[in-house]
Protein backbone atom coordinates (compact mmCIF):
# COMPACT_ATOMS: atom_id res chain seq x y z
CA UNK A 1 0.00 0.00 0.00
CA UNK A 2 2.84 2.36 0.92
CA UNK A 3 4.65 1.42 -2.25
CA UNK A 4 1.47 1.94 -4.26
CA UNK A 5 1.13 5.49 -2.97
CA UNK A 6 4.77 6.42 -3.63
CA UNK A 7 4.69 5.09 -7.13
CA UNK A 8 1.32 6.60 -7.93
CA UNK A 9 2.65 9.95 -6.70
CA UNK A 10 5.70 9.61 -8.94
CA UNK A 11 3.53 8.98 -11.98
CA UNK A 12 1.29 11.89 -11.14
CA UNK A 13 4.28 14.20 -11.03
CA UNK A 14 5.56 12.57 -14.15
CA UNK A 15 2.34 13.31 -16.06
CA UNK A 16 2.27 16.84 -14.72
CA UNK A 17 5.50 17.57 -16.58
CA UNK A 18 3.23 17.61 -19.63
CA UNK A 19 0.55 19.87 -18.21
CA UNK A 20 -1.38 20.69 -21.38
CA UNK A 21 -1.58 17.07 -22.36
CA UNK A 22 -2.87 16.20 -18.89
CA UNK A 23 -5.61 18.82 -19.02
CA UNK A 24 -6.69 17.81 -22.52
CA UNK A 25 -6.82 14.10 -21.67
CA UNK A 26 -8.85 14.72 -18.53
CA UNK A 27 -11.35 16.84 -20.47
CA UNK A 28 -11.50 14.21 -23.21
CA UNK A 29 -12.34 11.52 -20.68
CA UNK A 30 -15.00 13.69 -19.11
CA UNK A 31 -16.58 14.28 -22.52
CA UNK A 32 -16.44 10.69 -23.84
CA UNK A 33 -17.80 9.33 -20.61
CA UNK A 34 -20.46 12.05 -20.63
CA UNK A 35 -21.55 11.05 -24.14
CA UNK A 36 -22.76 7.71 -22.80
CA UNK A 37 -25.19 9.57 -20.67
CA UNK A 38 -26.28 11.78 -23.54
CA UNK A 39 -27.29 8.59 -25.38
CA UNK A 40 -29.54 7.65 -22.47
CA UNK A 41 -30.99 11.15 -22.33
CA UNK A 42 -31.75 11.02 -26.07
CA UNK A 43 -33.58 7.72 -25.64
CA UNK A 44 -35.75 9.22 -22.94
CA UNK A 45 -36.62 12.10 -25.22
CA UNK A 46 -38.57 9.51 -27.25
CA UNK A 47 -39.92 7.29 -24.54
CA UNK A 48 -40.90 7.60 -20.91
CA UNK A 49 -39.67 4.25 -19.72
CA UNK A 50 -36.96 1.77 -20.69
CA UNK A 51 -37.70 -1.81 -19.74
CA UNK A 52 -40.19 -0.34 -17.32
CA UNK A 53 -37.55 1.92 -15.72
CA UNK A 54 -37.95 5.67 -15.58
CA UNK A 55 -35.15 8.15 -16.29
CA UNK A 56 -34.20 8.54 -12.65
CA UNK A 57 -33.92 4.80 -12.23
CA UNK A 58 -31.78 4.32 -15.32
CA UNK A 59 -29.63 7.22 -14.15
CA UNK A 60 -29.26 5.38 -10.85
CA UNK A 61 -28.04 2.26 -12.67
CA UNK A 62 -25.80 4.38 -14.87
CA UNK A 63 -24.32 6.18 -11.88
CA UNK A 64 -23.72 3.15 -9.68
CA UNK A 65 -22.11 1.13 -12.46
CA UNK A 66 -20.06 4.10 -13.64
CA UNK A 67 -18.78 5.01 -10.19
CA UNK A 68 -17.82 1.38 -9.52
CA UNK A 69 -15.90 1.12 -12.79
CA UNK A 70 -14.40 4.58 -12.31
CA UNK A 71 -13.07 3.69 -8.86
CA UNK A 72 -11.74 0.31 -9.97
CA UNK A 73 -10.12 1.91 -13.01
CA UNK A 74 -8.52 4.63 -10.90
CA UNK A 75 -7.16 2.15 -8.35
CA UNK A 76 -6.03 -0.86 -10.38
CA UNK A 77 -6.85 -0.01 -14.01
CA UNK A 78 -3.16 0.50 -14.71
CA UNK A 79 -2.64 -3.21 -14.28
CA UNK A 80 -4.02 -3.73 -17.77
CA UNK A 81 -0.82 -2.21 -19.13
CA UNK A 82 1.23 -5.03 -17.71
CA UNK A 83 1.27 -6.65 -21.15
CA UNK A 84 3.53 -3.90 -22.42
CA UNK A 85 5.91 -4.42 -19.51
CA UNK A 86 5.94 -8.13 -20.20
CA UNK A 87 6.66 -7.70 -23.89
CA UNK A 88 9.52 -5.25 -23.48
CA UNK A 89 10.91 -7.06 -20.43
CA UNK A 90 10.71 -4.05 -18.13
CA UNK A 91 8.65 -6.07 -15.66
CA UNK A 92 12.02 -7.49 -14.57
CA UNK A 93 12.89 -4.09 -13.13
CA UNK A 94 9.71 -4.05 -11.04
CA UNK A 95 10.32 -7.59 -9.81
CA UNK A 96 13.65 -6.76 -8.18
CA UNK A 97 12.23 -3.95 -6.05
CA UNK A 98 11.22 -4.56 -2.43
CA UNK A 99 7.60 -3.57 -3.08
CA UNK A 100 5.01 -6.20 -4.01
CA UNK A 101 4.90 -6.31 -7.78
CA UNK A 102 1.13 -6.06 -7.80
CA UNK A 103 1.26 -2.70 -6.03
CA UNK A 104 3.76 -1.48 -8.60
CA UNK A 105 1.78 -2.72 -11.56
CA UNK A 106 -1.47 -1.28 -10.20
CA UNK A 107 0.21 2.10 -9.73
CA UNK A 108 2.09 1.91 -13.01
CA UNK A 109 1.47 5.02 -15.11
CA UNK A 110 -1.14 6.02 -12.53
CA UNK A 111 -3.37 8.48 -14.33
CA UNK A 112 -5.25 11.11 -12.44
CA UNK A 113 -7.22 11.86 -15.61
CA UNK A 114 -9.31 8.81 -14.73
CA UNK A 115 -10.98 11.08 -12.21
CA UNK A 116 -12.85 12.41 -15.25
CA UNK A 117 -15.10 9.38 -15.47
CA UNK A 118 -15.56 9.23 -11.72
CA UNK A 119 -16.65 12.86 -11.50
CA UNK A 120 -19.10 12.61 -14.35
CA UNK A 121 -20.72 9.36 -13.22
CA UNK A 122 -20.72 10.54 -9.62
CA UNK A 123 -22.66 13.61 -10.70
CA UNK A 124 -25.14 11.43 -12.60
CA UNK A 125 -25.61 9.30 -9.49
CA UNK A 126 -26.23 12.33 -7.30
CA UNK A 127 -28.72 13.66 -9.81
CA UNK A 128 -30.56 10.35 -9.92
CA UNK A 129 -30.89 10.37 -6.13
CA UNK A 130 -32.71 13.69 -6.44
CA UNK A 131 -35.02 12.38 -9.17
CA UNK A 132 -35.78 9.04 -7.54
CA UNK A 133 -38.99 8.55 -5.69
CA UNK A 134 -37.74 5.90 -3.29
CA UNK A 135 -38.73 5.14 0.26
CA UNK A 136 -35.27 5.42 1.85
CA UNK A 137 -35.51 2.82 4.56
CA UNK A 138 -32.24 2.07 6.42
CA UNK A 139 -31.56 -1.13 4.45
CA UNK A 140 -31.82 0.82 1.18
CA UNK A 141 -29.53 3.57 2.46
CA UNK A 142 -26.91 1.08 3.57
CA UNK A 143 -27.17 -0.85 0.35
CA UNK A 144 -25.90 2.12 -1.67
CA UNK A 145 -22.28 2.29 -0.35
CA UNK A 146 -22.45 -1.50 -0.02
CA UNK A 147 -23.10 -1.91 -3.75
CA UNK A 148 -20.61 0.75 -4.79
CA UNK A 149 -17.80 -0.96 -2.88
CA UNK A 150 -18.76 -4.44 -4.08
CA UNK A 151 -19.09 -3.21 -7.64
CA UNK A 152 -15.66 -1.59 -7.45
CA UNK A 153 -14.22 -4.84 -6.11
CA UNK A 154 -15.85 -6.89 -8.87
CA UNK A 155 -14.53 -4.63 -11.62
CA UNK A 156 -11.12 -4.51 -9.91
CA UNK A 157 -11.06 -8.30 -9.79
CA UNK A 158 -11.80 -8.44 -13.51
CA UNK A 159 -9.01 -5.94 -14.21
CA UNK A 160 -6.59 -8.11 -12.25
CA UNK A 161 -7.78 -11.30 -13.96
CA UNK A 162 -7.21 -9.61 -17.30
CA UNK A 163 -3.74 -8.50 -16.22
CA UNK A 164 -2.85 -12.00 -15.03
CA UNK A 165 -4.04 -13.48 -18.29
CA UNK A 166 -1.66 -11.20 -20.18
CA UNK A 167 1.26 -13.22 -18.86
CA UNK A 168 0.12 -15.96 -21.24
CA UNK A 169 -1.60 -14.01 -23.98
CA UNK A 170 -0.15 -10.59 -24.55
CA UNK A 171 -3.29 -9.10 -26.04
CA UNK A 172 -5.70 -10.22 -23.36
CA UNK A 173 -6.32 -6.57 -22.48
CA UNK A 174 -8.99 -6.38 -25.17
CA UNK A 175 -10.87 -9.37 -23.76
CA UNK A 176 -10.75 -7.81 -20.33
CA UNK A 177 -11.99 -4.49 -21.75
CA UNK A 178 -15.02 -6.34 -23.08
CA UNK A 179 -15.89 -7.29 -19.51
CA UNK A 180 -15.00 -4.04 -17.75
CA UNK A 181 -16.07 -1.31 -20.16
CA UNK A 182 -18.49 -3.63 -21.94
CA UNK A 183 -19.89 -4.71 -18.60
CA UNK A 184 -20.22 -1.10 -17.60
CA UNK A 185 -22.26 -0.27 -20.69
CA UNK A 186 -24.41 -3.32 -20.06
CA UNK A 187 -25.16 -2.59 -16.43
CA UNK A 188 -26.07 1.02 -17.19
CA UNK A 189 -29.36 -0.31 -18.53
CA UNK A 190 -32.05 -2.22 -16.67
CA UNK A 191 -31.66 -6.01 -16.90
CA UNK A 192 -35.23 -6.21 -18.20
CA UNK A 193 -34.26 -4.85 -21.62
CA UNK A 194 -31.84 -7.71 -22.31
CA UNK A 195 -32.43 -11.29 -23.39
CA UNK A 196 -32.81 -13.61 -20.47
CA UNK A 197 -29.82 -15.75 -21.47
CA UNK A 198 -27.54 -12.75 -21.46
CA UNK A 199 -28.76 -11.79 -18.01
CA UNK A 200 -28.13 -15.37 -16.85
CA UNK A 201 -24.63 -15.23 -18.30
CA UNK A 202 -23.68 -12.05 -16.46
CA UNK A 203 -25.22 -13.37 -13.27
CA UNK A 204 -23.71 -16.83 -13.05
CA UNK A 205 -20.68 -16.83 -15.38
CA UNK A 206 -19.17 -13.37 -15.16
CA UNK A 207 -21.04 -11.97 -12.17
CA UNK A 208 -21.50 -8.45 -13.49
CA UNK A 209 -25.14 -8.48 -12.36
CA UNK A 210 -23.89 -8.10 -8.80
CA UNK A 211 -22.14 -4.83 -9.60
CA UNK A 212 -25.43 -2.94 -9.43
CA UNK A 213 -28.41 -4.82 -10.89
CA UNK A 214 -29.13 -7.09 -7.97
CA UNK A 215 -28.79 -4.54 -5.16
CA UNK A 216 -30.48 -1.86 -7.30
CA UNK A 217 -33.51 -4.09 -7.73
CA UNK A 218 -33.98 -3.95 -3.99
CA UNK A 219 -33.36 -0.22 -3.74
CA UNK A 220 -35.78 0.52 -6.61
CA UNK A 221 -38.23 -2.17 -5.45
CA UNK A 222 -38.34 -3.98 -8.78
CA UNK A 223 -38.88 -7.66 -9.52
CA UNK A 224 -35.88 -9.78 -10.42
CA UNK A 225 -36.14 -10.93 -14.07
CA UNK A 226 -34.48 -14.23 -13.13
CA UNK A 227 -36.61 -14.71 -10.03
CA UNK A 228 -33.64 -15.32 -7.73
CA UNK A 229 -34.29 -15.51 -3.98
CA UNK A 230 -34.24 -12.22 -2.10
CA UNK A 231 -30.80 -12.73 -0.55
CA UNK A 232 -29.27 -12.37 -4.03
CA UNK A 233 -29.95 -8.63 -3.68
CA UNK A 234 -27.50 -8.53 -0.78
CA UNK A 235 -25.00 -11.09 -2.08
CA UNK A 236 -22.75 -8.62 -3.90
CA UNK A 237 -19.93 -8.53 -1.28
CA UNK A 238 -19.72 -12.33 -1.27
CA UNK A 239 -19.55 -12.40 -5.05
CA UNK A 240 -16.96 -9.60 -5.01
CA UNK A 241 -14.83 -11.49 -2.50
CA UNK A 242 -14.98 -14.59 -4.68
CA UNK A 243 -14.00 -12.67 -7.82
CA UNK A 244 -11.10 -11.01 -6.00
CA UNK A 245 -10.00 -14.35 -4.56
CA UNK A 246 -9.89 -15.97 -7.99
CA UNK A 247 -8.08 -12.92 -9.36
CA UNK A 248 -5.48 -13.07 -6.59
CA UNK A 249 -4.79 -16.74 -7.26
CA UNK A 250 -4.51 -16.12 -10.99
CA UNK A 251 -2.13 -13.21 -10.41
CA UNK A 252 0.08 -15.26 -8.13
CA UNK A 253 0.25 -18.12 -10.61
CA UNK A 254 0.98 -15.65 -13.42
CA UNK A 255 3.93 -14.04 -11.64
CA UNK A 256 5.36 -17.41 -10.70
CA UNK A 257 5.09 -18.56 -14.28
CA UNK A 258 6.63 -15.38 -15.66
CA UNK A 259 9.15 -16.20 -18.36
CA UNK A 260 10.78 -12.84 -18.91
CA UNK A 261 12.40 -11.96 -22.23
CA UNK A 262 15.56 -13.26 -23.81
CA UNK A 263 18.12 -10.82 -22.52
Amino acid at each position, binding site marked *: *MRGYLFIAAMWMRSTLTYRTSFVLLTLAQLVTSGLDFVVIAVMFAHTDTLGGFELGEVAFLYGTSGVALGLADLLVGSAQQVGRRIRDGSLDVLLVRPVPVFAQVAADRFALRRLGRLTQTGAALAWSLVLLDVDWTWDRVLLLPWMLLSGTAIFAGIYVLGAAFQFWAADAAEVQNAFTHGGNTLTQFPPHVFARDLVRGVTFVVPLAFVNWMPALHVLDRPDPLGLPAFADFASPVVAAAVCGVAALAWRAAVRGYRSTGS
Partner: protein
Amino acid sequence: MDPTPPPDHPTGDTAFPVPPPRASSSGAATSGGMTGGELIRVENVVKTFTVRTRAGRFRREKTEVRAVDGIDFTVRGGEVVGYIGPNGAGKSTTIKMLTGILVPSSGRLRVAGLDPARERTRLARRIGVVFGQRTTLWWDLPLRDSYALMRRMYRVPRDRYRENLDRCVELLDLADLLDRPVRQLSLGQRMRGDIAAALLHDPRVLYLDEPTIGLDVVSKARVRSFLRAVNTEQGTTVLLTTHDMTDIEQLCSRVMVIDHGRLVHDGDLRGLRLGGHSERTLVVDLERELPPIRLEGARTLRVEGPRQWLAFPATASAAPLVAEIAARFPLVDLSIREPAIEDVIARMYADRAVG
Protein backbone atom coordinates in the same frame (compact mmCIF):
# COMPACT_ATOMS: atom_id res chain seq x y z
CA MET B 1 -0.33 -10.22 -4.46
CA ASP B 2 2.58 -10.69 -2.22
CA PRO B 3 1.98 -9.82 1.38
CA THR B 4 3.47 -6.49 2.31
CA PRO B 5 6.84 -7.22 3.87
CA PRO B 6 6.88 -6.68 7.61
CA PRO B 7 8.32 -3.33 8.64
CA ASP B 8 11.97 -4.22 8.67
CA HIS B 9 14.62 -2.74 10.84
CA PRO B 10 15.47 0.76 9.76
CA THR B 11 18.55 -0.38 7.86
CA GLY B 12 16.69 -3.13 6.03
CA ASP B 13 18.51 -5.88 7.88
CA THR B 14 20.48 -5.45 11.01
CA ALA B 15 21.56 -9.05 10.92
CA PHE B 16 24.18 -7.87 8.49
CA PRO B 17 26.33 -5.04 9.75
CA VAL B 18 26.24 -1.88 7.74
CA PRO B 19 29.51 -1.39 5.88
CA PRO B 20 32.25 -0.84 6.46
CA PRO B 21 33.32 -3.37 7.62
CA ARG B 22 30.57 -5.65 6.48
CA ALA B 23 32.06 -8.79 5.13
CA SER B 24 32.66 -10.37 8.52
CA SER B 25 29.43 -12.28 9.03
CA SER B 26 26.75 -13.48 6.70
CA GLY B 27 24.58 -15.75 8.78
CA ALA B 28 25.36 -18.56 6.37
CA ALA B 29 28.10 -21.03 7.14
CA THR B 30 31.28 -19.02 7.29
CA SER B 31 34.06 -21.21 6.11
CA GLY B 32 36.84 -18.68 6.06
CA GLY B 33 38.41 -18.00 2.72
CA MET B 34 38.44 -14.70 0.86
CA THR B 35 36.81 -11.83 2.67
CA GLY B 36 33.53 -13.30 3.77
CA GLY B 37 31.26 -16.26 4.10
CA GLU B 38 29.20 -17.88 1.44
CA LEU B 39 26.71 -15.47 -0.04
CA ILE B 40 25.33 -17.28 -3.06
CA ARG B 41 24.83 -21.01 -3.38
CA VAL B 42 23.54 -22.61 -6.55
CA GLU B 43 22.97 -26.36 -6.51
CA ASN B 44 22.15 -28.32 -9.62
CA VAL B 45 19.84 -25.62 -10.94
CA VAL B 46 17.89 -26.29 -14.10
CA LYS B 47 15.58 -23.95 -15.99
CA THR B 48 13.58 -25.24 -18.91
CA PHE B 49 11.28 -23.28 -21.16
CA THR B 50 8.61 -24.77 -23.33
CA VAL B 51 8.71 -23.15 -26.70
CA ARG B 52 5.74 -23.46 -28.99
CA THR B 53 6.48 -23.35 -32.64
CA ARG B 54 4.00 -23.43 -35.45
CA ALA B 55 3.74 -26.70 -37.22
CA GLY B 56 1.16 -26.41 -39.91
CA ARG B 57 -1.79 -24.08 -39.93
CA PHE B 58 -3.25 -24.69 -36.49
CA ARG B 59 -1.06 -27.28 -34.92
CA ARG B 60 1.64 -26.11 -32.60
CA GLU B 61 4.57 -28.13 -31.54
CA LYS B 62 6.00 -27.94 -28.05
CA THR B 63 9.70 -28.25 -27.59
CA GLU B 64 11.55 -28.05 -24.34
CA VAL B 65 14.60 -25.81 -24.19
CA ARG B 66 17.04 -26.17 -21.33
CA ALA B 67 18.29 -22.63 -20.85
CA VAL B 68 20.22 -23.62 -17.74
CA ASP B 69 21.14 -27.26 -17.49
CA GLY B 70 22.32 -28.19 -14.03
CA ILE B 71 24.81 -25.63 -12.74
CA ASP B 72 26.55 -25.52 -9.36
CA PHE B 73 28.58 -22.75 -7.83
CA THR B 74 29.03 -20.70 -4.70
CA VAL B 75 30.12 -17.10 -4.33
CA ARG B 76 31.69 -15.69 -1.19
CA GLY B 77 31.21 -12.23 0.17
CA GLY B 78 33.56 -9.73 -1.44
CA GLU B 79 34.22 -11.60 -4.67
CA VAL B 80 33.94 -10.00 -8.09
CA VAL B 81 32.76 -12.65 -10.49
CA GLY B 82 32.53 -12.34 -14.24
CA TYR B 83 29.85 -14.46 -15.82
CA ILE B 84 30.43 -14.86 -19.49
CA GLY B 85 29.30 -16.92 -22.42
CA PRO B 86 27.89 -16.52 -25.90
CA ASN B 87 24.41 -15.15 -26.51
CA GLY B 88 21.70 -17.51 -25.39
CA ALA B 89 24.06 -19.52 -23.18
CA GLY B 90 21.96 -18.97 -20.07
CA LYS B 91 23.69 -15.98 -18.44
CA SER B 92 20.64 -13.80 -18.07
CA THR B 93 18.49 -16.75 -17.08
CA THR B 94 20.88 -17.49 -14.22
CA ILE B 95 20.86 -13.89 -13.04
CA LYS B 96 17.08 -13.82 -13.22
CA MET B 97 16.85 -16.92 -11.06
CA LEU B 98 19.31 -15.43 -8.57
CA THR B 99 17.15 -12.33 -8.27
CA GLY B 100 13.88 -14.25 -8.01
CA ILE B 101 12.47 -13.03 -11.32
CA LEU B 102 12.38 -16.55 -12.69
CA VAL B 103 11.48 -19.65 -10.72
CA PRO B 104 13.95 -22.51 -11.34
CA SER B 105 12.54 -25.71 -12.78
CA SER B 106 14.61 -27.72 -10.33
CA GLY B 107 17.60 -27.37 -8.03
CA ARG B 108 18.30 -25.14 -5.07
CA LEU B 109 19.27 -21.49 -4.81
CA ARG B 110 20.21 -19.43 -1.76
CA VAL B 111 21.17 -15.77 -1.89
CA ALA B 112 22.04 -13.90 1.32
CA GLY B 113 20.24 -16.59 3.27
CA LEU B 114 17.01 -16.43 1.27
CA ASP B 115 15.29 -18.46 -1.42
CA PRO B 116 15.03 -15.93 -4.26
CA ALA B 117 11.83 -17.21 -5.87
CA ARG B 118 9.91 -17.57 -2.60
CA GLU B 119 11.21 -14.48 -0.84
CA ARG B 120 11.75 -12.19 -3.80
CA THR B 121 10.47 -9.01 -2.17
CA ARG B 122 12.54 -9.54 0.98
CA LEU B 123 15.61 -10.44 -1.03
CA ALA B 124 15.23 -7.23 -3.03
CA ARG B 125 16.43 -5.25 0.00
CA ARG B 126 19.68 -7.17 0.13
CA ILE B 127 20.61 -7.05 -3.53
CA GLY B 128 21.12 -4.42 -6.17
CA VAL B 129 20.39 -5.11 -9.81
CA VAL B 130 21.38 -3.18 -12.90
CA PHE B 131 20.02 -4.27 -16.26
CA GLY B 132 22.16 -2.73 -18.95
CA GLN B 133 19.28 -2.49 -21.37
CA ARG B 134 16.54 -1.36 -18.99
CA THR B 135 16.35 1.47 -16.57
CA THR B 136 14.79 1.71 -13.13
CA LEU B 137 14.79 5.50 -13.36
CA TRP B 138 11.76 7.70 -14.00
CA TRP B 139 11.97 8.89 -17.57
CA ASP B 140 10.33 12.29 -17.21
CA LEU B 141 11.53 13.25 -13.75
CA PRO B 142 14.90 14.56 -12.57
CA LEU B 143 17.40 11.89 -11.55
CA ARG B 144 17.19 13.12 -7.97
CA ASP B 145 13.49 12.18 -7.76
CA SER B 146 14.17 8.58 -8.73
CA TYR B 147 16.72 8.36 -5.94
CA ALA B 148 14.24 9.80 -3.44
CA LEU B 149 11.78 7.08 -4.47
CA MET B 150 14.48 4.43 -4.01
CA ARG B 151 15.08 5.72 -0.51
CA ARG B 152 11.40 5.30 0.34
CA MET B 153 10.93 1.95 -1.36
CA TYR B 154 13.99 0.49 0.32
CA ARG B 155 13.38 2.35 3.59
CA VAL B 156 16.92 3.67 3.74
CA PRO B 157 17.52 5.91 6.78
CA ARG B 158 18.08 9.49 5.75
CA ASP B 159 21.68 9.91 6.90
CA ARG B 160 22.67 6.57 5.39
CA TYR B 161 21.00 7.61 2.13
CA ARG B 162 22.72 10.96 2.08
CA GLU B 163 26.11 9.36 2.66
CA ASN B 164 25.61 6.78 -0.09
CA LEU B 165 24.22 9.28 -2.54
CA ASP B 166 27.09 11.69 -1.91
CA ARG B 167 29.63 8.96 -2.50
CA CYS B 168 27.95 7.82 -5.73
CA VAL B 169 27.57 11.38 -6.97
CA GLU B 170 31.23 12.03 -6.38
CA LEU B 171 32.64 8.81 -7.80
CA LEU B 172 30.26 8.60 -10.76
CA ASP B 173 30.41 12.32 -11.46
CA LEU B 174 26.65 12.80 -11.25
CA ALA B 175 26.55 16.26 -9.67
CA ASP B 176 25.52 18.05 -12.86
CA LEU B 177 22.96 15.41 -13.79
CA LEU B 178 20.89 15.23 -10.61
CA ASP B 179 18.40 17.87 -11.68
CA ARG B 180 18.11 16.77 -15.30
CA PRO B 181 15.16 14.65 -16.42
CA VAL B 182 16.37 11.15 -17.17
CA ARG B 183 15.16 11.31 -20.78
CA GLN B 184 17.77 14.00 -21.41
CA LEU B 185 20.67 11.85 -20.24
CA SER B 186 23.03 10.08 -22.61
CA LEU B 187 23.31 6.31 -22.44
CA GLY B 188 26.52 6.48 -20.42
CA GLN B 189 25.08 9.02 -18.02
CA ARG B 190 21.92 7.01 -17.60
CA MET B 191 23.92 3.87 -16.89
CA ARG B 192 25.89 5.67 -14.19
CA GLY B 193 22.60 6.89 -12.79
CA ASP B 194 21.22 3.34 -12.76
CA ILE B 195 24.29 1.96 -11.01
CA ALA B 196 23.99 4.60 -8.30
CA ALA B 197 20.28 3.76 -7.90
CA ALA B 198 21.18 0.12 -7.27
CA LEU B 199 23.62 0.97 -4.49
CA LEU B 200 21.73 3.46 -2.34
CA HIS B 201 20.40 0.76 0.00
CA ASP B 202 23.79 -0.89 0.68
CA PRO B 203 23.09 -4.16 -1.12
CA ARG B 204 25.28 -7.10 -0.22
CA VAL B 205 25.34 -8.36 -3.78
CA LEU B 206 25.31 -6.27 -6.91
CA TYR B 207 24.25 -7.96 -10.14
CA LEU B 208 25.08 -6.20 -13.33
CA ASP B 209 23.73 -7.49 -16.61
CA GLU B 210 25.92 -6.03 -19.35
CA PRO B 211 26.74 -2.82 -17.50
CA THR B 212 29.03 -1.41 -20.17
CA ILE B 213 27.01 -2.31 -23.24
CA GLY B 214 26.93 0.53 -25.72
CA LEU B 215 29.09 2.86 -23.63
CA ASP B 216 32.05 4.84 -24.93
CA VAL B 217 35.56 4.22 -23.67
CA VAL B 218 35.52 7.01 -21.10
CA SER B 219 32.18 5.95 -19.62
CA LYS B 220 33.32 2.33 -19.48
CA ALA B 221 36.48 3.28 -17.62
CA ARG B 222 34.50 5.33 -15.12
CA VAL B 223 32.01 2.55 -14.48
CA ARG B 224 34.83 0.06 -13.96
CA SER B 225 36.77 2.16 -11.51
CA PHE B 226 33.59 2.84 -9.60
CA LEU B 227 32.75 -0.86 -9.33
CA ARG B 228 36.27 -1.55 -8.14
CA ALA B 229 35.91 1.08 -5.46
CA VAL B 230 32.52 -0.27 -4.34
CA ASN B 231 34.00 -3.73 -4.04
CA THR B 232 37.12 -2.78 -2.12
CA GLU B 233 35.64 -0.06 0.07
CA GLN B 234 32.17 -1.45 0.77
CA GLY B 235 32.98 -5.10 0.43
CA THR B 236 30.05 -5.47 -1.97
CA THR B 237 30.01 -8.72 -3.86
CA VAL B 238 29.71 -8.16 -7.59
CA LEU B 239 28.43 -10.58 -10.21
CA LEU B 240 28.46 -9.26 -13.74
CA THR B 241 27.69 -10.58 -17.17
CA THR B 242 29.44 -8.97 -20.05
CA HIS B 243 30.67 -9.36 -23.58
CA ASP B 244 33.46 -6.91 -22.95
CA MET B 245 36.63 -8.77 -22.05
CA THR B 246 38.24 -5.65 -20.67
CA ASP B 247 35.55 -5.61 -17.98
CA ILE B 248 36.64 -9.09 -17.00
CA GLU B 249 40.34 -8.39 -17.16
CA GLN B 250 40.12 -5.24 -15.11
CA LEU B 251 37.49 -6.22 -12.57
CA CYS B 252 37.06 -9.89 -12.02
CA SER B 253 39.05 -12.10 -9.72
CA ARG B 254 37.03 -15.04 -10.92
CA VAL B 255 35.45 -15.99 -14.21
CA MET B 256 32.62 -18.40 -14.83
CA VAL B 257 31.97 -19.41 -18.40
CA ILE B 258 28.59 -20.81 -19.33
CA ASP B 259 27.76 -22.46 -22.60
CA HIS B 260 24.60 -24.30 -23.59
CA GLY B 261 23.36 -23.92 -20.02
CA ARG B 262 26.38 -25.61 -18.44
CA LEU B 263 29.34 -24.17 -16.59
CA VAL B 264 32.42 -24.96 -18.64
CA HIS B 265 34.90 -22.98 -16.58
CA ASP B 266 34.97 -21.63 -13.05
CA GLY B 267 38.21 -20.18 -11.77
CA ASP B 268 40.58 -17.30 -12.21
CA LEU B 269 41.53 -15.65 -15.45
CA ARG B 270 44.88 -17.41 -15.63
CA GLY B 271 43.16 -20.74 -15.27
CA LEU B 272 40.93 -19.85 -18.17
CA ARG B 273 43.91 -19.01 -20.34
CA LEU B 274 45.85 -22.09 -19.34
CA GLY B 275 42.84 -24.34 -19.64
CA GLY B 276 42.50 -23.78 -23.34
CA HIS B 277 45.28 -24.57 -25.76
CA SER B 278 46.27 -20.97 -25.76
CA GLU B 279 49.58 -19.40 -26.56
CA ARG B 280 51.37 -16.39 -25.20
CA THR B 281 53.29 -14.12 -27.50
CA LEU B 282 56.85 -12.89 -27.07
CA VAL B 283 57.51 -9.61 -28.87
CA VAL B 284 61.24 -9.24 -29.52
CA ASP B 285 62.94 -6.06 -30.68
CA LEU B 286 66.38 -6.69 -32.15
CA GLU B 287 69.13 -4.24 -33.06
CA ARG B 288 68.68 -4.87 -36.75
CA GLU B 289 66.71 -6.95 -39.21
CA LEU B 290 67.54 -10.60 -38.91
CA PRO B 291 66.11 -13.83 -40.36
CA PRO B 292 63.32 -15.38 -38.23
CA ILE B 293 64.51 -16.67 -34.88
CA ARG B 294 64.20 -20.43 -34.57
CA LEU B 295 63.93 -21.81 -31.06
CA GLU B 296 62.83 -25.06 -29.43
CA GLY B 297 59.33 -24.68 -27.98
CA ALA B 298 58.35 -21.54 -29.88
CA ARG B 299 57.29 -20.62 -33.38
CA THR B 300 57.74 -17.40 -35.24
CA LEU B 301 54.48 -15.73 -36.07
CA ARG B 302 55.61 -12.63 -37.85
CA VAL B 303 58.70 -10.62 -38.73
CA GLU B 304 58.53 -6.89 -39.35
CA GLY B 305 61.89 -5.17 -39.68
CA PRO B 306 63.81 -5.65 -36.44
CA ARG B 307 60.68 -6.77 -34.56
CA GLN B 308 59.64 -10.40 -34.33
CA TRP B 309 56.63 -12.15 -32.77
CA LEU B 310 57.11 -15.59 -31.28
CA ALA B 311 54.31 -17.75 -29.93
CA PHE B 312 54.80 -20.30 -27.17
CA PRO B 313 52.36 -22.40 -25.10
CA ALA B 314 50.71 -20.46 -22.30
CA THR B 315 51.60 -23.21 -19.85
CA ALA B 316 55.36 -22.98 -20.58
CA SER B 317 57.64 -20.61 -18.73
CA ALA B 318 58.95 -17.63 -20.68
CA ALA B 319 62.24 -17.50 -18.75
CA PRO B 320 64.31 -20.07 -20.70
CA LEU B 321 63.15 -18.60 -24.00
CA VAL B 322 64.07 -15.09 -22.96
CA ALA B 323 67.46 -16.26 -21.67
CA GLU B 324 68.23 -18.04 -24.89
CA ILE B 325 67.22 -15.11 -27.10
CA ALA B 326 69.24 -12.68 -24.98
CA ALA B 327 72.26 -14.96 -25.23
CA ARG B 328 72.10 -15.56 -29.00
CA PHE B 329 70.70 -12.35 -30.48
CA PRO B 330 71.36 -8.62 -30.21
CA LEU B 331 68.31 -7.86 -28.03
CA VAL B 332 67.04 -4.29 -27.53
CA ASP B 333 63.66 -4.81 -25.92
CA LEU B 334 61.21 -7.57 -25.16
CA SER B 335 57.63 -7.93 -23.97
CA ILE B 336 55.14 -10.72 -23.34
CA ARG B 337 51.54 -10.56 -24.46
CA GLU B 338 48.89 -12.57 -22.70
CA PRO B 339 46.39 -14.24 -24.98
CA ALA B 340 43.22 -12.20 -25.53
CA ILE B 341 40.37 -13.80 -23.63
CA GLU B 342 38.12 -13.50 -26.64
CA ASP B 343 40.43 -15.87 -28.44
CA VAL B 344 40.65 -18.23 -25.51
CA ILE B 345 36.91 -18.42 -25.14
CA ALA B 346 36.34 -18.70 -28.86
CA ARG B 347 38.77 -21.60 -28.86
CA MET B 348 36.99 -23.19 -25.92
CA TYR B 349 33.70 -23.02 -27.76
CA ALA B 350 35.31 -24.42 -30.87
CA ASP B 351 36.82 -27.30 -28.88
CA ARG B 352 33.49 -28.08 -27.30
CA ALA B 353 31.73 -27.97 -30.63
CA VAL B 354 34.20 -30.46 -32.06
CA GLY B 355 34.46 -32.64 -28.94
